[in-house]
């Protein structure tokens, strides 16, 4: 008789059964089982940091010293952020590098060819450099159509990459700018570009204000416009810790996801209606007077008087020009007093003060109206509002975690602004467990943004020079803000030091004026962002293109447009680990290789743990990584490729002058390596900056030190505007001093106060100046006393006359300086007049929306959104053919376009195919069964997906009409796996935010039908 599965017996009970058997009386001891003492295979151990979501988890990589390949990769238990944990992607890193499908030698695709040919590195570098020179010499523009000197190359463009180490990012931007490129873009544009102006306008810097571990200090975590259990799984360690201490987790999302499964409160909302939802919260806060009054009065511009020209009516602010679709922002200026400082009303009663204007603006956002637009039931709205606003109590702090659900909209910047304003009203900025936590999504997208692989900025968030500023002096004058308020630190007044030092880092031997002329200039008001770049590419502007560590054929909105655009190129350089939809576009679906003339140079790169360098996580921690295995086969680190190309171009331009050779020959490559190999330490030292001549430095206590030329600068206050210092990026100044590379620090020593809030000030280095919680001056009152006695991040020590715990964000005794030192007036901005569509966020529908009008105003869409002429017919507004709202989503198991994760068997096993989540109602409507193939379609394209019929999505009542939503991941591409599916971006529209041009990939319209 077999032991049935359910008849499970305990031995102790069996012992009695033995006696029942007949009392054999045997004493049976434990069954012998000595499993042999098992040995672990020894390997060389190195540490690295995961390359995926930007949480920055520590890894231990074990490499077999004989084979030189890794044998095991797992989490580092010692790392304070992940403590050994890794999500599916991190746990699978072994298969990223040890994979037979990696491309391990350079590959070339000839015009019209249907295959790749292997070539040597020497041939690749030579041929690419020759083509760069040819395009540059033939398309270089000394002047623009207005006759202004621009010194730029019109025929080259580049996208990439947040996957590069910071040192590689910096040299890449220097290389591209030395060639004269202005069309420089990368992942940051399509991911968190909207975060930067939103947070900079509100607080002064565009980065995540707190950091990952700090989440545990929160009393209430709201996740909205984000799904962090799936996109940043290890941050959930810290969300869980907060919950263990009694914090509430709120999740607001169109779908019930793995994040919602852990939330105390889940509320649904329609994609693209976050401003309505949050505007309702602002109204709730003001109606019930829940503001943290002291904080709002002293630390925000609530009391500022706005000038008489500002107004708002029926969806438009004053100053709009319908023809140009632009606002005259001068109309929104503050009223200044006789000293040139904004007037203030500290009673907050003046009808022209920001507080009253704010109240008036959001008077329309009552819960009934909000509910009709968002689809969120009114009781749920109120529950969310009530729960979160409890954090306005001075002792409490609430935090927001967000990501693409807010950034990727035509109102992306204003989505984020609304929450930034809420956090100011509740007094949550600068506090432990507070802040606005922009959760960036790429291993080093923070670094690549800091180092400005974007058209509109140069390293350190300074504006790319434009053609109206012909000289160095004009640039300095136009870009350095002035404040007449003695309490405003107005830190950007130091910009001349940073700009001069950057120019010297790039062009060490040139004087500042010459170096300035070598910088390529944009036209005034020119938009060269991602969508414009591919629009221009389609029009044939670019002969040569770099898709460096990026996969635009799958990541860019409107994939058909992007893929067609690629076919207009003469040549492309594609750097990646695996074959991908971009480098192989010529053999994609709808392409006939014979008709595609584009040459493709595929350069195989090392994976992250095969090289050394730093990456900066979303919490601004600059973490150094080490090489375990060597680059596989003939793969190279990107730094080496960039270095070799730069040296080769210098060689070519030495031989034959060509167009405007100055910046190429003058490029400071001596700090990039030894003439052969790229040296990340050398570059990191350059990025930090060093003295170009002997300099006397005076300390705060008066002591003077002579620092010889070549000494590292120990902090950006010591940078000079006279060309005597060089510094690749002032934000990183202080990271690599004469004491050493602070990004390599692995010390968990903390004071008890630091340990309480999990500051870890001696583990790696965070910008700026190792400060961990930004705006921490706002966490104390005007006497320097922390508002939160249980979890202070800053406290004034009266005897020592100094600040303790974190690095203070702005020096000076308590009460002497306003806390938002990067803002001109030193205040957090509730009213933000610097943004392109208005100082207050206003609800507008996504460009493709299911309703013809909304109750907030007569303006259906963002009047200043980025759109392209002639594409209206490829968009669907309230079109019965495409009645379902579609949103692009992410899952834990894959990352971005899947260009790295789709090749890993363990990850494809877990999430094998493109799918489409839909409600049971929608499935019934269309006769669709769970698990069967469906087609999604709209005017831009179509794709297949496996139907996932689920309770987690529900139709919403939008202005009386049941509205359905479907959700599709964007992780798949036609290259691999063969039955995986293709990119969600085949369906997304090429429309963008009014400030940054980020594509609106989170809300568009589709039809769904059985395949």
């Amino acid at each position, binding site marked *: *008789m*077999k*032991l*049935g*599965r*359910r008849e*499970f*017996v305990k*031995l102790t009970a*069996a012992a009695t*059964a*033995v006696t029942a058997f007949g009392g054999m009386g*045997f004493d*049976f001891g*434990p*069954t*012998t*089982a*000595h*499993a042999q003492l*098992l*040995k672990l295979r020894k390997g060389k151990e190195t540490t690295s940091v995961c390359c995926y979501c930007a949480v920055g988890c520590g890894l231990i990589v074990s490499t077999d010293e004989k084979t030189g390949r890794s044998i095991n*990769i*797992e*989490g580092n238990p010692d790392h304070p952020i992940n403590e*050994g*944990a*890794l*999500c*599916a992607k*991190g*746990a*699978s890193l*072994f*298969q990223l590098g040890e994979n037979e499908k990696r491309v391990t030698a350079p590959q070339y695709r000839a015009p019209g060819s249907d295959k790749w040919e292997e070539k040597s590195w020497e041939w690749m570098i030579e041929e690419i450099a020759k083509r760069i020179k040819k395009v540059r010499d033939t398309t270089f523009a000394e002047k623009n159509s207005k006759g202004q000197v621009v010194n730029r190359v019109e025929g080259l463009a580049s996208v990439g990459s947040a996957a590069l180490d910071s040192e590689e990012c910096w040299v890449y931007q220097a290389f591209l700018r030395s060639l004269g490129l202005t069309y420089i873009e990368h992942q940051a544009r399509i991911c968190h570009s909207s975060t930067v102006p939103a947070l900079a306008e509100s607080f002064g810097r565009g980065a995540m204000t707190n950091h990952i571990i700090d989440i545990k200090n929160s009393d209430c975590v709201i996740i909205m416009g984000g799904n962090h259990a799936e996109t940043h*799984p*290890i941050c*959930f*360690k810290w969300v*869980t810790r907060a919950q263990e201490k009694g914090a509430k987790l709120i999740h607001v999302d169109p779908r*019930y996801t*793995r994040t919602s499964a852990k939330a105390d409160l*889940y509320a649904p909302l329609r994609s693209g209606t976050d401003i309505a939802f949050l505007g309702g919260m602002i109204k709730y806060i003001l109606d019930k007077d829940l503001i943290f009054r002291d904080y709002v009065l002293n630390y925000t511009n609530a009391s500022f008087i706005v000038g008489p020209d500002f107004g708002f009516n029926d969806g438009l602010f004053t100053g709009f020009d319908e023809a140009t679709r632009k606002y005259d922002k001068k109309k929104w200026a503050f009223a200044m007093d006789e000293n040139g400082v904004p007037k203030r009303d500290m009673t907050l009663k003046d009808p022209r003060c920001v507080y009253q204007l704010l109240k008036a603006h959001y008077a329309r956002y009552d819960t009934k109206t909000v509910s009709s637009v968002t689809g969120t039931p009114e009781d749920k709205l109120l529950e969310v509002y009530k729960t979160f606003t409890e954090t306005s109590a001075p002792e409490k702090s609430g935090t927001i975690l967000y990501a693409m659900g807010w950034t990727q909209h035509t109102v992306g910047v204003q989505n984020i602004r609304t929450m930034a304003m809420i956090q100011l009203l509740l007094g949550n900025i600068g506090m432990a467990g507070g802040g606005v936590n922009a959760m960036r999504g790429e291993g080093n997208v923070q670094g690549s943004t800091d180092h400005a692989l974007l058209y509109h900025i140069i390293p350190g968030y300074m504006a790319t020079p434009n053609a109206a500023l012909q000289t160095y002096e004009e640039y300095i004058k136009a870009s350095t803000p002035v404040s007449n308020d003695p309490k405003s630190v107005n830190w950007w007044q130091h910009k001349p030091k940073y700009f001069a030092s950057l120019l010297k880092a790039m062009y060490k031997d040139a004087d500042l004026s010459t170096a300035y002329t070598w910088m390529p200039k944009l036209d005034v008001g020119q938009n060269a962002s991602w969508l414009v770049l591919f629009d221009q590419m389609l029009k044939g502007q670019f002969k040569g293109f770099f898709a460096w560590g990026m996969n635009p054929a799958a990541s860019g909105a409107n994939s058909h447009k992007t893929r067609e655009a690629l076919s207009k190129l003469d040549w492309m350089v594609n750097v990646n680990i695996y074959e991908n939809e971009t480098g192989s576009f010529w053999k994609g679906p709808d392409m006939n290789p014979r008709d595609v003339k584009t040459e493709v140079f595929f350069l195989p790169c090392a994976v992250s743990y095969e090289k050394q360098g730093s990456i900066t996580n979303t919490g601004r921690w600059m973490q150094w990584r080490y090489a375990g295995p060597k680059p596989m086969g003939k793969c190279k680190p990107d730094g080496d490729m960039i270095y070799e190309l730069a040296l080769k171009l210098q060689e070519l331009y030495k031989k034959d002058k060509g167009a405007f050779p100055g910046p190429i020959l003058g490029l400071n490559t001596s700090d990039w390596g030894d003439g052969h190999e790229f040296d990340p330490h050398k570059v990191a030292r350059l990025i930090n900056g060093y003295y170009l001549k002997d300099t006397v430095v005076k300390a705060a206590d008066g002591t003077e030190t002579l620092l010889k030329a070549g000494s590292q600068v120990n902090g950006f206050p010591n940078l000079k505007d006279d060309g005597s210092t060089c510094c690749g990026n002032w934000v990183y100044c202080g990271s690599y001093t004469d004491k050493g590379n602070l990004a390599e620090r692995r010390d968990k020593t903390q004071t008890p106060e630091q340990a309480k809030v999990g500051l870890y000030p001696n583990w790696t280095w965070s910008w700026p100046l190792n400060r961990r919680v930004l705006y921490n001056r706002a966490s104390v009152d005007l006497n320097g006393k922390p508002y939160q006695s249980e979890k202070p991040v800053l406290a004034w020590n009266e005897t020592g006359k100094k600040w303790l715990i974190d690095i203070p964000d702005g020096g000076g005794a308590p009460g002497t300086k306003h806390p938002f030192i990067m803002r001109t007036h030193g205040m957090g901005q509730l009213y933000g007049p610097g943004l392109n569509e208005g100082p207050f966020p206003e609800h507008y529908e996504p460009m493709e929306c299911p309703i013809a009008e909304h109750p907030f105003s007569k303006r259906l869409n963002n009047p200043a959104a980025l759109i392209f002429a002639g594409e209206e017919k490829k968009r669907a507004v309230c079109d019965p053919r495409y009645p379902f709202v579609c949103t692009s989503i992410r*899952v834990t*198991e894959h990352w971005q376009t899947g260009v790295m994760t789709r090749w890993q068997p*363990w990850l*494809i*096993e*877990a*999430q*094998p*195919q493109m*799918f489409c989540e839909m409600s*049971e109602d929608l499935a019934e409507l269309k006769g669709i069964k769970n698990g069967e193939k469906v087609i999604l379609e709209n005017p831009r394209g179509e794709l297949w997906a*496996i*139907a*996932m*019929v689920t*309770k987690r999505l*529900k139709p919403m009542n939008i202005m009386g009409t049941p509205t359905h939503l479907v959700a599709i991941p964007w992780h798949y591409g036609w290259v691999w796996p063969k039955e995986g599916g293709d990119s969600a971006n085949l369906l997304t529209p090429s429309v963008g935010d009014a400030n940054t041009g980020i594509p609106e990939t989170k809300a568009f319209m589709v039809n769904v039908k059985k395949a």
Partner: protein
Amino acid sequence: MSGKSFFVDLAKCTACRGCQVACKQWNKLPAEQTRNHGSYQNPMDVSAITYKTVHMKEISDDQGFMAAWLFFPEQCRHCTEPPCKMTADAYDDQAILQDEVTGAITFTDRTKNLPDFDEIREACPYNIPRQNAETKVMTKCTMCLDRVQNGRVPACVQSCPTGTMNFGERDEMLALAENRLAEVQKKYPDAVLGDADSTRVIYLYQMPPQKYHDFAVASAATPGLMNRKAMFAKLFGSAPRNKA
């Protein structure tokens, strides 16, 4: 009782699949060929090459809205008195071992010679044992005994970010489980621990275990009759016998 135990706090699980993949990575197990069945779960079941998989179940309230999405990272329970071993012992008591120090139950190479795989599999109340079709070796979670003997925790435990997977001395894990049960019961009054007395993998279920997976727990308390063969094996060791 000494030895090691796991405590799996399902209330904290986010189904990040770190445990599932970490197990594959440590053991260098191949991936299955899967397709999307209309859910996030994959693989659908443990197998000869999958020792751990995360089950997912949507639970709705009486209005059809989501009440919970339950996640169940399934693995061998390392029973304190393992029926798989008790059954195998009738043939070869060195085929399935029970480590004296940790209590880990391991399938050795010798399982390939056991005459009836189904007998072993059906003995397990949790439907865990699987067999490699070619080699006939039986497979399941090993408690990462090689890691544990070298001072590390099992790969799945280290990989877990939220504190779902815990591992340590049995009495510590039981104490942790009781504490957490009390905590979780405040929000989920039906929360229970699963088979805490008889296994070394103690799950904390927010809701009745059957909602997570058919084989989440062994059926309720009544001990059945012990298989005669297994009983004789206990008594007389693994002297070769004819199959009864």
